[in-house]
């Protein structure tokens, strides 16, 4: 696909791609706290601020908890706000993640996905964001630094959309993406500025009967973050769910608009399908693993194997319809989970995919593969083995082991 605008190619790692995109997004307030592997993001932002390259207030808070509280408060005041975190930092924000989505503050956060302690581990997996899957944040997982860059702009447009008004996480695999240098095509500043625009505020009806922008404004006083008793709380939560449903459409619209501009497309924005049209055995995954899977698919296809990939880009909202459509005709599906749900029925991704397929009349066999925890490398040969498993499942019409661990010493 050709782009309508001339783009420059820069050598950026995933973190730098985030920072560069953030720089171009006309952010008003950044409140953040350093944590590996996202630290490069805040370092870069600090550098942009120091060099006067951005018109942004940069606040180094004393914890991630305060970073999120400050982002939420700045957002409630009407500012476009951004932060970055990972692992323990995201876990420390846990309480505030719910408050932020509950207050309908469209904060954007890049998460350089990292394992959770204990034992302490700074490397990549999805334990951190998967633990926040019910926190009311939209979650988008990128496959490479280019997609990271592209997703940041989309995140602002999605979160700030008047039908959505929800915070957005853009996930990039720790080290695999955050610290790996790639060629990234960047758009000119003015083009991006036009695309992201200035934050638009929804209007609300005040107690005085006035229709005013939803923000803390002394001219139109508003009480935000009140107490809601059992007689009202439930309705607030239902509205959040409605906003998530709306996001399904908005993510696709924004993605398409951006694709027209940049020439880059990631499926329909929710799901990326790779060689899926006639695929009989399919791997489902999130993030950078998609790249490895694609390589293996090419090898398998050359051997005549009908292998395909479904990469889930938006995990929240979970695109059930698209998943059913994409996998409904497959014979066997392997879902790759880069986090554990201890004591659960498989990982988070597999549980949801399997659940989505339940109502399909002739649904495929589904097997769960837990992989890559704490940054353990996942090789093409291991992916190949997964496809071999799937072929065996198709032949024997039976899933021997519903949950398998990839590359693990047992």
């Amino acid at each position, binding site marked *: 696909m050709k782009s309508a605008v001339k783009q420059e190619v820069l050598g950026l790692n995933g973190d730098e791609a985030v920072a560069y995109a953030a720089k171009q997004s006309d952010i*008003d*307030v950044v*409140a953040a706290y350093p944590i590996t592997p996202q630290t490069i993001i805040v370092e870069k932002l600090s550098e942009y601020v120091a060099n006067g390259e951005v*018109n*942004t*207030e940069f*606040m*180094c*808070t*004393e*914890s991630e*908890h*305060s*970073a999120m*509280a*400050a*982002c*939420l*408060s*700045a*957002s*409630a*005041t*009407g*500012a476009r*706000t951004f932060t970055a975190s990972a692992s323990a930092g995201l876990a420390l924000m846990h*309480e*505030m993640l719910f*408050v932020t989505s509950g*207050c309908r503050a469209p904060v954007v956060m890049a998460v350089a996905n990292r394992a959770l302690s204990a034992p302490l581990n700074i490397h990549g997996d999805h334990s951190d964001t998967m633990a926040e899957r019910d926190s009311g944040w939209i979650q988008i997982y990128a496959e490479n630094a280019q997609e990271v860059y592209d997703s940041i702009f989309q995140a602002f447009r999605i979160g700030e959309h008047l039908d959505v008004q929800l915070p957005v996480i853009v996930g990039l695999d720790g080290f695999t993406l955050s610290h790996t240098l790639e060629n990234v095509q960047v758009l000119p500043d003015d083009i991006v500025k036009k695309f992201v625009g*200035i934050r638009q505020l929804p209007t609300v009806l005040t*107690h005085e009967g006035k229709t005013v922008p939803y923000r*803390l*404004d*002394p*001219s*139109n*006083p*508003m*009480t*935000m*973050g*009140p*107490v*809601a*008793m059992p007689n*009202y709380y439930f309705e607030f939560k239902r509205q959040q769910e409605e906003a998530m449903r709306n996001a399904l459409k908005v993510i696709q619209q924004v993605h398409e608009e951006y694709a027209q501009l940049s020439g880059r497309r990631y499926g329909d924005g929710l799901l990326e399908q790779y060689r899926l049209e006639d695929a009989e055995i399919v791997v489902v995954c999130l993030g950078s693993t998609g790249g490895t899977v694609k390589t293996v698919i090419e090898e398998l296809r050359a051997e005549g194997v009908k292998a395909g990939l479904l990469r889930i880009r938006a995990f929240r909202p979970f695109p059930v319809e698209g998943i059913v459509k994409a996998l409904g005709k497959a014979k066997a599906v392997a879902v790759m989970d880069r986090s554990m749900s201890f004591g659960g029925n498989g990982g988070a991704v597999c549980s949801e995919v399997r659940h989505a397929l339940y109502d399909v009349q002739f649904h495929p066999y589904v097997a769960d593969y837990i992989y890559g925890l704490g940054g353990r490398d996942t090789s093409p040969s291991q992916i190949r083995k997964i496809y071999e498993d799937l072929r065996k499942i198709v032949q024997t019409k039976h899933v021997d082991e519903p949950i398998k661990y990839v590359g693990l010493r047992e």
Partner: protein
Amino acid sequence: MAFSEGKFTTKDIAEKPDLFLSGHRACAGCASATVLRLIMKATRGPTIVTNATGCMEVASTIYPYTSWAAPWLHTAFETAGANASGIETALKILRKKGRIKDEQVDVIAFAGDGGTFDIGIQALSGAVERGHDFLYVLYDNEAYMNTGIQRSGGTPLGAFTTTSQAGSAVPGKLENKKPIADIMVAHDMPYVATAAPYYWKDLIVKARKGIEVNGPAFLHVFAPCPRGWRSDPAKSIELSRLAVETCIFPLWEAVNGEYQLSTPSKVIALAPQKKKPVKEYLQVQGRFRHLFTPKYEKIIDEIQRLTDERWNRLLKRCGMTPPAKTA
């Protein structure tokens, strides 16, 4: 610093429209509600308020009602300092970018003792270190009253709470109150003060100073709680006076770290005979009732000793000579 001291007359205050309105659900005799109302009388113009989780947040904003005629935000228990940081920072940049009116908007954060001495001290300390321009008001009712009277770092020695119970083995809380205002002075912040609602004008003037000062200001306000203190709801304001007169809660200011006594406490410093024994303050509160038994009466002496010790230290800080030790 250009302060507005003396500008307030009773008439001014009475005529100024309330920003904290009646209809809230605070308990009868709640001093915190009075404190909030008085402080909102001290605003100098457009103001945004943020509130930590606690009595005042819960009592004033039960959806779909609100007692706030000022824009108001609550996010969580431990976040008052971080909220004020975010609001102030957003105002600064939005004004710079011309997205909001180019006018001074003040930021006030309210939090109770739980939200300040304990769970919120980190966010408060961070916000002060970063130098945000806001007034932080601690309304101190000396326990987690909202959840039903549990001890906090602000609960005084010997007090009964539901988590520092007084029984045959333990005489209520075993530890003394954290000197929170001194901790804030140690942050090298421009303005720290203590206040009590009985001295309402002193309270309003201090709040105004805290608003007008450039940078962070901290106001520690004593707020008797009849439910938690087991005291007469009609006597809350009087109790705040007794706390000052016994030097349990002296009134002072620290401007750029320089301590000075405020008039009600200065009067006592200059005429030590006016200093009342702590017993007078303790005996009118049910939370100290067990101290008036032979088993625990020595704790009253200990409270007196600690009170004197802190008072004398304060006098020294204010450049005044503590009275010579008797006996």
